[in-house]
């Protein structure tokens, strides 16, 4: 029996039987002659391929902008896909976001424009979208334009933000909900591509456990913001792929008095409000992680599981004492997150084991901060990322967790610097000793992002900044990104 991907394209149901499982949505669209969606980089960094996914959320359709270049076709199953061609009715007037871009001279060469249109369209359908400057910048940080200098595009976004949100998609929502309801499936999609490579999309933990029992070497896929690049850039052909995006349990967020539990499939976009309300600094960091498109697709679980040395969120999670819940055939174990990273892209996961959730304890008495330093403020990979937490009793440090990314082959705690703090008063002298110790804790690399000397200097200075901020001397600083 063929595996058939069923989704709504624009306003009609499309069925694709047994496609190559790692065909990207961009490749598929363009092969259909839908060429409005452009390839600028094939790695989710330029936004020219931005499309909008509609899915049912609490009885409403929620729209989110994603990068079609690193989205696999079967990930559309059960969803609505909108591209730039869908916004304007045939021979009808332009959609308000399109008209705003025309009126403000927001396109020059026009190649990035469809991506901007779709990012703006997704925000148009969020009540709070494009309401303030930060929201506008956050929404568009994943769309590069090389011609305009952005001012006219930002002006168009401001006009859209101030305008009524009525459009034909709002009118047609009930019909679309019914269409999507008709695409619901009870058991997960399984398909086999023309070259025999397989794709599984389990619907629940039990299905997932069974699949991993049968295929312990399967590539686990969440948002595809990393695995997508294995395919488009490294030309790998993973088989089989087990996609976690439809496993309901993995998308749960539990806010408990003493901890927050985030399912491994929770996207950064979904986690952001939860993290930001508990730890504003963490929220600020996540807003700089990738772009709106990347945060809509990418998951915290994926960011942890792939064990990249430069995952922006890792130092913060380590500093907060996060713990990972690992699951193997239903048997769960919990480990401190720092014990998960064994070496460059090597982890503590056993064959057939998967990351189910991350739990982050609240730290009532501790002081916490997290920082990211990169060449560009938005959507850049950090040269250095840091997460710090210290607990004081009568001015003396009783616990210190100092974690860094970009400083070693794994996200890592600074053992020497921590030792230099614990048991000592939280003073500039103590911090100076810890700064010194960072030089022996780490031997970072020289690479295209930064030199080793810069990384060490910045790591030290971030600790200094943390000290100044935590001791009420922040007025000497004022965050540069204030």
């Amino acid at each position: 029996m063929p595996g058939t991907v069923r989704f709504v394209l624009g306003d009609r149901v499309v069925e694709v039987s047994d496609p190559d499982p790692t065909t990207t949505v961009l490749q598929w669209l363009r092969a259909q002659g839908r060429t409005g969606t452009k390839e600028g980089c094939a790695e989710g960094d330029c936004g020219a391929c931005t499309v909008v996914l509609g899915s049912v959320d609490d009885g409403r359709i929620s729209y989110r902008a994603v990068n079609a270049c690193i989205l696999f076709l079967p990930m559309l199953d059960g969803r609505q896909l909108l591209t730039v061609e869908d916004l304007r009715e045939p021979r009808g007037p332009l959609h308000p976001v399109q008209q705003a871009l025309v009126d403000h001279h927001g396109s020059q060469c026009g190649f990035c424009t469809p991506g901007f249109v779709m990012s703006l369209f997704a925000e148009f359908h969020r009540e709070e979208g494009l309401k303030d400057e930060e929201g506008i910048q956050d929404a568009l940080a994943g769309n590069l334009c090389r011609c305009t200098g952005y001012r006219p595009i930002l002006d168009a976004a401001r006009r859209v933000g101030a305008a009524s949100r009525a459009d034909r998609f709002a009118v047609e929502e009930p019909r679309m909900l019914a269409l999507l309801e008709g695409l619901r499936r009870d058991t997960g999609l399984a398909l086999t591509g023309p070259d025999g490579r397989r794709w599984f999309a389990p619907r629940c933990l039990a299905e997932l456990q069974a699949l991993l029992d049968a295929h312990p070497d399967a590539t686990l896929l969440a948002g595809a913001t990393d695995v997508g690049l294995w395919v488009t850039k490294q030309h790998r052909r993973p088989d089989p792929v087990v996609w976690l995006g439809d496993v309901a349990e993995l998308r749960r967020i539990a806010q408990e008095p003493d901890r927050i539990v985030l399912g491994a499939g929770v996207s950064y976009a979904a986690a952001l409000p939860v993290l930001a309300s508990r730890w504003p600094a963490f929220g600020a960091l996540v807003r700089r992680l990738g772009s709106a498109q990347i945060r809509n697709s990418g998951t915290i679980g994926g960011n942890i599981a792939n064990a990249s040395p430069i995952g922006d969120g890792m130092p913060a999670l380590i500093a907060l004492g996060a713990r990972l819940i690992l699951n193997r055939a239903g048997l769960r174990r919990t480990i401190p997150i720092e014990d998960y990273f064994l070496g460059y892209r090597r982890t503590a996961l056993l064959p057939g084991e998967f990351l189910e959730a991350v739990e982050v304890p609240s730290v009532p008495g501790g002081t916490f901060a997290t920082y990211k330093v990169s060449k560009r403020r938005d959507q850049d990979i950090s040269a250095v990322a840091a997460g710090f937490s210290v607990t004081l009793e009568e001015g003396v440090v009783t616990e210190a967790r100092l974690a860094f990314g970009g400083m070693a082959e794994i996200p890592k705690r600074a053992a020497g610097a921590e030792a230099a703090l614990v048991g000592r008063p939280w003073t500039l002298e103590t911090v100076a000793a810890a700064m010194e110790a960072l030089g022996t804790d780490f031997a970072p690399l020289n690479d295209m992002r930064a030199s080793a000397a810069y990384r060490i200097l910045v790591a030290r200075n971030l600790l200094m900044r943390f000290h100044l901020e935590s001791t009420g001397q922040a007025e000497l600083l004022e965050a540069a990104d204030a």
Partner: protein
Amino acid sequence: MRDEPGFGPTTPGPVHDANPGPARLRGAAGDPVPHDSAAKHVSGEAVYTDDIPELPGTLHAYVLQSPRAHARILRLDVSAARRAPGVHAVLTAGDVPGAVDIGPVFPGDPVLAPELVEYVGQAVAAIAAETPGQARAAAALIEAEYEDLPAILTVDEALEAGSYVGPGLTMRLGESAAALAAAPRRLSGSFAMGGQDHFYLEGQIAYALPREDGDMLVHSSTQHPSEVQHLIAKVLGRPDAHVTVEVRRMGGGFGGKETQPALIACIAALLADATGRPVKYRMDRDDDMVMTGKRHDFQVRYEVGFDEEGRIQGIEMDLAARCGMSPDLSNAVVDRAMFHADNAYFLANATVTGLRCKTNTVSNTAFRGFGGPQGMVAIEYVVDEIARALGRDPLDVRRANLYGPGRDLTHYHQPVEDGPLLAALMDDLEASCAYRERRRAIDAFNAAHRVLKKGLALTPVKFGISFTATHMNQAGALVHLYQDGSIQLNHGGTEMGQGVHTKVAQLVATEFGVGLDRVRIMATSTGKVPNTSPTAASSGTDLNGAAALRAAREIRNRMTLFLAEHFAEPAESVAFRDGIVAVGGRTLAFAEACHLAYVNRIHLSAAGYYRTPKIWWDRTEARGRPFYYFACGAAATEVLVDTLTGEYRFLRADLLHDCGTSVNPAIDLGQVEGGYVQGLGWLSFEELWWDAHGRLRTHAPSTYKIPTGRDVPADFRVRLVANQPNREDVVHRSKAVGEPPLMLAISGYLALKDAVAAVGGHRFPVHLDAPATPERVLMACEAVRALGAAGPWAGP
């Protein structure tokens, strides 16, 4: 606040206003109408080369690249690749039927490497297969064996080895050595500025379609269709007339699609010729960034003598560019850097030398400004250092050095008449951006903050307009007027987003006195207009607009003579305006007049041709008038730096730019804003990073960071200069605008330098290479702190 020039025909004739039409037609020259493709851009309907429906049988190309920076090819075995699934052809240099070299001006760029590879990424073999994946897979089956040769990767290594792609050139005015010796104060130093990737959003692409009799039609994303045509003919060993190159629009060019598309198009054409099937070659982003040239990085050495006011008495400057493995356009790029090593300043006694370093890296090429920005950064850096040495506000030193009456000759002996304009621009901006008040406020801020520092800089721009290769300053156009009154416009300019088609169509519509809607803009084709120059050097509208106007005027003149005779009225009484043609007391609808002319056998099609007057350049003597005129501007930028990490935000920018009487103020404003932000990216965090083996490691947007929306100054005030018609007879008395505004961003770079200087209370010199990444800014702060004897920063 921007200029809204008045409406009017380019050459107003006597008008008998018996029956005036509608008040004003949309899209006349001077109207800020949207880009002609704006609605198609936002709806996804605009067709780029990759969007052209593929013909059945289309094959896809992939190229095997050299993994070595400099090596002899000992063995190249493509037999396994030829047998691979889906593969229809595998070509190496020996399979090229015509010439292998596709150097645009000088030889040095083999389409496929014959026996030597000279940079990592150089094309070694080309494959055509049924899918891009099959072509790529086949490339992995090619067996290549190399013998490494010593590689020269940097300017320093090239200078050391005396490795050049062409001879050096020196421009001289006065006696620099004597002036240096006599000057009250002297400074010398050196610094470096990096290159820049174009990062057009649409990568390089060509689609070649074989036609009968060995003809070839090639859709190429190119700023220079005529050169692509010529080089395809050359590699195929056929006459130019057998090849047609067409481009409707590019997804950005910025100079990166001037000479570079030839490689892509020639490979597609060679494979199409070899297989007899259509072949598309679309480079993916990584291949594009590795295989194609970029802005030249430069090393600058200078010695300058000046007085206590900071006025330059004598200067000697060496500008050494990393040209890469071949000459490409480097000769002209370095010349233009030298031409702009004065920026807006009178250098009474100057010796400016340009060196063209040959390295085993990709051959650097045209990029918006074409060396001009590098020359300008050089002199602005020197002027900034003079100010720091004297403890003066750099703006005062800039003002002291401006061109003016009696101080008005460049180091290439072209008189500068724009001194008063430059002074007026700086006056205006100094006042309108409240420079002095903000300087005081910034000083107070810096005194109150240990970690955060602000910087401010105001810099002028004077940019020479014309190709310095004089013969390139020519253009052609072909205008058809149909009997229903609709117009087809063809000209040699190419559309890359800059709006040249919109502006030229506005000029033509105005000439016929009709609305812009009547003018149909056609794809640029070598079959319509031959022997075109590249759309480059900011010249698109100046040259092609003038050619199109001449074609339109020719048709209008024929109609005028006919209508006058037909109605027995004087020719002077015929007027084209407001969508009608007035003849004596009579009015005809425009379409009616066209139809009448047609049935009376009046030729309603004309070719127009234009060449720029007045210019000449004697390169041997290094003197002449290479530029028809200068485009000027000024900008002030303020920045906030975090001196713990080197991170920064541009807080505010005030731009004032001279477009003459703008043909389209909205489009020109877009060029000013976009150019500034692109320049800001170049000088701040766009960093090209090569490893020790000569491999570019920043070859995708994940590692190469161009500005995003948040990097644009939050407070961004941009104006076009009002009431400043071009004194030269350029279309609509406008001025070219493509490149000059990029250099307004030098104010951002010097604002960063100013903020770093504030770390030491402006008492110490600052060394800050470009791009001024957060890392370079932090390290510069550390150096200033060390000079301040306070040692490394140790807390408040």
